[in-house]
């Protein structure tokens, strides 16, 4: 990962895309969110979603999956250049999570992340607090998912 100092407000990254197959939608729903419209095509069609729809928590978890993979790719690239890499800290939470449009079986969602704000942590001098808006857009270019997430970013002087 990059250090806190290397993130700039307004910076945007495409973090990857993911196709939500019926099989994956039902597998996640069966485990964590077995509401009828996440498990059955016909029930999905009759619901507000208009088709078999991924659990919102599945969409959010896939967003995390792609963010982690993107961070790991950046880390590997930085190590290959002989640069120092930062640890990614845990997240204290998020706000304004919106399931804007249903993610239906077969949809491919492309996720992006934009830095919205950054500040130093009062309690933890070796960390900064980053706020990023992660979004998911479907194959028709429609915004389907958005969240304003907070995370700790390691500062360059963390070794002190």
């Amino acid at each position, binding site marked *: 990962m990059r250090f806190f100092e290397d993130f700039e407000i307004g910076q945007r990254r495409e973090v990857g895309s993911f196709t939500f197959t019926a099989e994956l939608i039902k597998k996640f729903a069966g*485990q*964590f*969110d*077995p*509401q009828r*419209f996440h498990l059955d095509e016909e029930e999905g069609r*009759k*619901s*507000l*979603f208009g088709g078999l*729809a991924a*659990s*919102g*928590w599945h969409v*959010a*978890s*896939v967003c*995390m*999956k792609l963010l*982690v993979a993107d961070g*790991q790719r950046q880390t590997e690239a930085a190590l290959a250049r002989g640069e120092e890499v930062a*640890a*990614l*800290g*845990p*997240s*204290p*939470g*998020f*706000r*304004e*999570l*919106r*399931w804007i449009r249903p993610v239906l079986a077969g949809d491919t969602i492309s996720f992006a992340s934009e830095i919205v704000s950054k500040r130093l942590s009062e309690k*933890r001098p070796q*960390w900064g607090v980053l706020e990023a808006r992660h979004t998911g857009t479907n194959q028709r270019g429609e915004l389907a998912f958005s969240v304003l997430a907070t995370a*700790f970013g390691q500062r360059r002087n963390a070794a002190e």
Partner: protein
Amino acid sequence: MSKPIHMTMLTFEDFPPGRFGSFGPRRVSREEIIAFAAEFDPQPMHLDEEAAAQSMLKGLAASGWHLCSIMMRMMFDFYIGRTASLGSPGVNELRWLAPLRPGDDVTIDVDVAEARVSRSRPETGIVTFRTTARNGSGQALCEMVSPIIVQRRADVTAE
């Protein structure tokens, strides 16, 4: 979009503001924590004891998204599964307050923060919950404020 609902289903009228209930416990195993993290959040603090011990979380801890998903499953098992819910538009705010550890027994305290009839779809209401997940010691792990859309009983009996 409304459809006939069984009379035992919970509707908008069953969610007045105030304490709705406390549910659980549900034990979370180390294997579950690692399996979820391997698929959705493969950071060392969620996968590996030694790496986790070095992290800010000071020991193996579940992905925050895993805890959200566990809370969803508990909400489903205890009331959403028998509620005339049409889904949720999102989550207003969520805070991860303490790590979820292997072997923790999770309970959820559910309050109705607000319940109002939808202006755009008056046959439905919007119920906003404040849900707190706690471990076996009663320590708050996560607090979430989130709405769901629920059918109204008047709409049900009219059919």
